[in-house]
């Protein structure tokens, strides 16, 4: 899938605020298949908003986003099969356990077997928390759960919104490795946002907001 942004700008931002952006108010900003993109900007510059626009969970923007050339695509259906998103606020369900949160997403498409899910949980060092309620986890643990959950569906684009903000170096390495494996397996692209910190991904393009 090819995602094309044309003259995108959040409604709540003025033209002056976004004068030096590589994305906002630019024509023909392309996100292509099998590539990794980093969107870098300081806090409050609309990184989350941009991912929400692409994901279709916010329409507070001017301009046009097209998916494979179609601008009025049914974005909702993409959430099941084409675009996966790790939200900055995770959007987990605190009254469900770690496993249940992941299975809740996985059951939409049955993309992974229980065994595969168990392995992923083990790999991110949450094996002992598999049956704990997510509400009782630390921020770092929740972030790992959200990252694993995002891998439990077919996707062509993986959107990561400041994905490692609560993780230590050891866990960042583990998660990065898992994500790269999944991206290669699915021939998928990555769009990650960052406050400026460096990631272990080999990005094809770094865009400033």
């Amino acid at each position, binding site marked *: 899938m090819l995602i094309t942004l044309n003259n995108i700008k959040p409604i709540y931002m003025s033209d002056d605020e976004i004068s030096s952006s590589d994305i906002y108010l630019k024509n023909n900003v392309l996100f292509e298949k099998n590539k990794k993109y980093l969107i870098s900007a300081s806090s409050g510059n609309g990184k989350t908003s941009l991912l929400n626009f692409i994901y279709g*969970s916010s329409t507070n923007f001017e301009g046009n986003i097209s998916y494979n050339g179609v601008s009025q695509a049914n974005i*909702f259906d993409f*959430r*099941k099969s084409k675009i996966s*998103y790790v*939200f900055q606020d995770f*959007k*987990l*369900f605190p*009254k*469900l356990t770690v496993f*249940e949160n992941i*299975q*809740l*997403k996985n*059951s*939409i498409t049955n993309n992974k077997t229980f065994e595969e899910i168990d392995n992923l949980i083990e790999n991110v060092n949450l094996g002992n928390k598999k049956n704990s309620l997510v509400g009782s986890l630390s921020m770092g643990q929740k972030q790992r759960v959200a990252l694993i*959950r995002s891998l439990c*569906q077919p996707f062509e684009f993986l959107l990561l919104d400041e994905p490692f903000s609560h993780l230590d170096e050891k866990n960042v390495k583990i998660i990065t490795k898992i994500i790269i494996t999944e991206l290669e397996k699915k021939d998928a692209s990555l769009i990650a946002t960052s406050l400026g910190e460096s990631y272990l991904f080999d990005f094809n393009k770094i865009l400033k907001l």
Partner: protein
Amino acid sequence: MLIKLQRKTLVATQIIGYSLTICVGFIIVLLITQFYFDIKPLLSQQTDVFKSKTAVITKNISVFKTINKEKIYFTEKEIHNLKEQPFTKDISKFMSANFKIKAFSNNTESVPVFYTDLFFESIPNNYIDVETDDWKWGSSLDFIPIIIPENYLNLYNFGFAESQGLPVLSKNTISQIEFFIEISGNKKLKKYKSKIVGFSNKVNSILVPEMFLLWANKEFGRVKENKTSRVLIEFINPSDKNILEYFNKNNFSINKDKLEFSKIGFFFKSALLFVFAIALVIIFLSIAFILLSLNLIIQRNKELILNLYNIGYNYNRIAKFYQVFITLVTVTSVVTSLIISNIIRNYYLREIVSFFDFNESRNYLLILSLSFILILTIIYNLIILKNIKKIVIQ
């Protein structure tokens, strides 16, 4: 997993409260409706005069009127005036025969010989409390059906037959006896076959079909004009105190006991209607309560619903749990009401049958319950879907 998550959003006390109130409401509504259909034949055939709001009025007969008989008839002006009263819904005149009538039997073994003079009257069919297929007349038929008051039979069986040493007769036996009617007047004479086809509890007269009397009065009547001495009046509200006031003022006679019967019937129906209305209010409140509760649940879990939508659950799937749940609760409640209503109905039917000659009416409980279930589930499903859609698509 989705069910487990959404189940945690429900509040048990609200659901139990809804189930109980809607169950009670439906028991009352189902029972009252069925009870009304069950006792309808009793109300129209046995309880009161004619229908629930009717009475027969005549003029008071005084010594003076025994000399001048014209005074017992209602004038057109009086009838018109009566019709115009605010308490009057409708008026029907009793029609009397204006010719000579004789009834007699042939000398057969089955019927004892008798010969008697008679009189006939008629009233509109819808005021007659006897239901029989024989109640019809056509000019080509030489048969006249007759309805007599049940009191006449009682007078014969318990008075006349007792003193004369004659056998007592059942309604059925009398209805089998065929006899002859001879009507004469206007220099004409005609003989008809006849039978007693029914016994009235309400009309104290010998009745023949109105069509026959209209025709016969023309053919055999002594006078052209039909005079009216008895009037059947249908009230809008029989408990209106102006009724008796008006009749006393105009010196009309009304059977007050019968008016009381009418009142009982009227109050009985009013009471049923009142309880029915209360039950409807209970149902309405319980529906409003559960809709409000569901709306609160949805609003309180707005974030959860939005998160579900964000991870790929569409609003139809999110709404499905609440739709199925409320449908199940409603079906269970209404089915429970249906079972309890049936048990209570069987109980009261047993009681009624022990008091009255009563044919069981059709059971409407199942069809009523199914209709309620259908209407409620459609309303709930649409409202839930609308509310959830409103939250996710902002």
